[in-house]
């Protein structure tokens, strides 16, 4: 398409989203720390003025923006972010973020809007039955449906 259209960006973008392969393999990757943090913030209505907090959280999860340790940049294979400590800290992040950074969001509505239609019934049920609002939102963020992409 690039050659045929002489590099027409609109045509290329349309070709990419028309490609069936682009719509397969849901959930085969895991979000990087930055993706997780930004998604969590967007899902829960985080305010822009708190962006420094997001930056700090990214650093704590090992992906300080613009500061990759290697000239190749941050790892882009999901296994590279899936060390034991790393995954546990992602869960810590979800619990802490839900408890301290999220205000006035209704967990069941949120789960319905954010996770569906991909979420499993088990995940939705667990969120609905969580012992507290923070626990429910944290669990939504930590759920495998939200961790993957």
């Amino acid at each position, binding site marked *: 398409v690039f050659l045929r259209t002489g590099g027409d960006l609109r045509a290329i973008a349309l070709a990419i989203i028309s490609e069936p392969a682009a719509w397969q393999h849901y959930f085969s990757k*895991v979000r990087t720390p930055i993706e997780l943090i930004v998604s969590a913030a967007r899902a829960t209505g985080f305010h822009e003025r708190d962006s420094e907090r997001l930056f700090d*959280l990214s650093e*704590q*999860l*090992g*992906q300080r923006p613009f500061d990759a*340790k*290697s*000239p*190749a940049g*941050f*790892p882009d*294979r*999901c*296994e*590279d*972010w*899936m*060390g*034991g*400590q*790393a*995954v*546990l*800290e992602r*869960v*810590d*992040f*979800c*619990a*802490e973020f839900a408890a301290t950074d999220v205000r006035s969001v209704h967990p069941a509505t949120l789960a319905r809007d954010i996770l569906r239609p991909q979420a*499993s019934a*088990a*995940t939705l049920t*667990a969120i609905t039955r*969580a*012992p507290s609002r923070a*626990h429910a939102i*944290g*669990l939504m963020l*930590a*759920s*495998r449906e939200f*961790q*993957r992409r």
Partner: protein
Amino acid sequence: MTPIDRRAFLHGSAGLSISAALATMPGLALARAPVSQRLVVLMLRGGMDGLAAVAPYADVNFKRIRGPFALTPRSDGGPLIELDEFFGLHPALAPIYGAYEEGHFLPVHAVGVSPNRSHFRAQDVLERGDPDPNDVADGWLNRVLQQVAGSDPGAAVTMGRAIPKILRGPALVGSWAPVRLSPAPADFLESVRANYSGDALLATALSQGIRLRAETARLLDAEPGQAGKQWNLVRVAETAGAFLAASEGPRIAVLQRGGWDTHAGQGAVGGRIGPLFTELAQALVALRGPLQAVWDKTVVVAITEFG
């Protein structure tokens, strides 16, 4: 000083080695599982100046080319600690001079594949263990793990959150880093663990993280005063030593320290490189502390590259 037999070194006798590139490791005797030998690889990223660490003070060109940065040995009233009649150790590395006298510290200068002046490529070579890093996809330590550890994700640990290339590949590895986020409450962890039950990647990693955290808590509780101290390389190294010393602990640990790209302001004794050497030497001593009982089965490789 006890002379170091190269073969003995390769087969797992005690040693600290500062090496300019990967040259000697494939002979390491890790081929039998279960493995009792310990291997620590400390990556010094950015290109540690080997001629500052172990200076060839007697080389006629050294003083001429290095000028004011060329240190002179103690016998000449300078600060370098003579290793022999040719090489001298930077004074900030004095804490590991004892290991040299024991025959446990072997500096290796100027080894490697043909340089192309790219730190990027040189680190790839170092971590993938192949002169053409495009030929292999995984890190050489991961290939070691595939041979000796099967699918045990506890056999190797990286001290940091992201897994470095040297450990990447099909074999699972653990990661450990000091925590600043509050640990998630136990009931929350239980909910998440249940949620991950159908997802092998997340479930395995989470279980391992929970186990490592419990282990760390136990280790730190045993040493009052440790909590709250800064997590520099020294403390990370000591923690790695404690992990490796445990009978059920990992056998391979990877540590990393960046900041060695001292193009500007390197200095001779002071400057940027002095404190880096101090931290490195203290870290190597701290690493040995908990490993003393298994030190004769431990190899520590501190490794760097210069492009």
